[in-house]
């Protein structure tokens, strides 16, 4: 296959940008034509992403994103939310395909931006043009889509675990507690006093016990996939790892649903042929439930559950590598669908273990 599709990345100096570069460097169907960075324009990509030395021989460009996009077939935007919304509409005018990593085009309801992101969305009518970039839930829409919006990393973990139960009516209490544990890379590459190693090492830091912005997209996607409304009670914690997320979702149900077979069925029916979903639930061995440790470097989402008869609770556990399935991996999977490639292209690296 020759690399005929030209892709570029705006925000290529960030962690998601670096992961996109890493994945795409091994994609036989695309050519990376530009890696955009304001701060590192002119520098070798490997100075910022030292892993890519000897892998990608490219220098960052500081050209205007519009100029960059005009030479591309598809553009990834891995810039902060609030920034994408200023760039994306201009790129849409060029007719180029887009995958936006930020939150700026994830929500369908414009008013949700005011509630959760505290800004008034300037382009409410563009929201419908974007497909929420979780292939497991929106595969058909993604095929041949022009615009996709990659999921939030914590949201991706939670949604993938919960959607099957929601869809099959197995959660009967409307409020779901989503307790997330996430590594440092989820917060990006920008240093702050709170990310100084000596201060960040060894923490179990509740960085967003309430008001987490991903609530909006979790509620949206559960509603879309089940036709029912759920309220998400979410808390997020930073833990002592770099990559990886574990989402523990505490759902409550009727006693009749406290039935393993029923739950297994819901998962299997939803994810029957999914190339990147694994069920993890073992009675022996060391890894009996999902754990981010065993998905590192891969696009897998591991899902498992446990029943708590004491409280009629189904505990849903889902683990992903936030930079892969939680960001660049899902984005490339979406791109593959948009461009007609085999969905798994460039995404089949097995996870590392031990690591």
């Amino acid at each position, binding site marked *: 296959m020759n690399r005929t599709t030209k892709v570029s990345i705006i925000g290529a100096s960030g962690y998601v940008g670096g992961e996109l570069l890493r994945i795409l460097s091994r994609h036989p169907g695309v050519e990376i034509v530009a890696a955009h960075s304001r701060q590192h324009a*002119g*520098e*070798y990509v*490997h*100075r910022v992403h030292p892993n890519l*030395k000897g892998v990608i*021989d490219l*220098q960052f460009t500081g050209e205007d994103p519009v100029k960059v996009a005009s030479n591309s077939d598809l553009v990834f935007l891995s810039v902060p939310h609030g920034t994408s919304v200023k760039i994306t509409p201009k790129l849409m005018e060029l007719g180029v395909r887009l995958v936006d990593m930020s939150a700026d085009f994830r929500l369908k309801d414009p008013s949700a931006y005011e509630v959760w992101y505290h800004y008034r969305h300037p382009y409410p009518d563009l929201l419908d043009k974007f497909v929420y970039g979780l292939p497991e839930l929106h595969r058909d829409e993604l095929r041949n889509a022009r615009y996709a919006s990659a999921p939030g990393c914590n949201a991706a973990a939670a949604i993938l675990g919960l959607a099957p139960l929601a869809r099959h009516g197995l959660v009967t209490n409307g409020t779901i507690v989503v307790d997330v544990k996430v590594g440092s890379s989820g917060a990006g590459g920008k240093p702050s006093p709170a990310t100084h190693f000596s201060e960040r090492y060894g923490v179990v830091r509740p960085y967003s016990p309430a008001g987490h912005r991903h609530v909006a997209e979790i509620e949206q996607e559960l509603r879309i996939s089940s036709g029912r409304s759920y309220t998400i009670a979410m808390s997020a914690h930073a833990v002592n790892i770099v990559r990886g997320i574990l989402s523990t979702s505490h759902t409550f149900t009727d006693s009749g649903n406290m039935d393993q077979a029923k739950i297994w069925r819901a998962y299997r029916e939803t994810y029957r042929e999914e190339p990147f979903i694994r069920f993890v639930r073992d009675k022996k061995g060391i890894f009996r439930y999902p754990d981010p440790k065993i998905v590192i470097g891969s696009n897998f989402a591991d899902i498992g559950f446990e029943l708590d008869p004491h409280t009629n609770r189904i505990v849903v556990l889902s683990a992903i590598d936030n930079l892969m399935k939680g960001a660049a991996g899902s984005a490339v999977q979406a791109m593959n669908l948009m461009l007609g490639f085999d969905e798994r292209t460039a995404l089949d690296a097995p996870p590392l273990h031990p690591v």
Partner: protein
Amino acid sequence: MPIKVQCQECGGTIAVPDDALPGEIVSCPDCGTEYEVVSVDPKAGRAELKPAEEVKEDWGE
């Protein structure tokens, strides 16, 4: 097409953009030595560089 110039310090290959302007700073991908662009001749595929004055950056530890 960037022009390839050999690094005087380490022998690495420096890619000088063919539209680089005199005075611009380029650096060696292998050893990080910085050079100032003296002149670029895109047609001949040649560029002249001279070592740039380096500001020592503290590394923190």
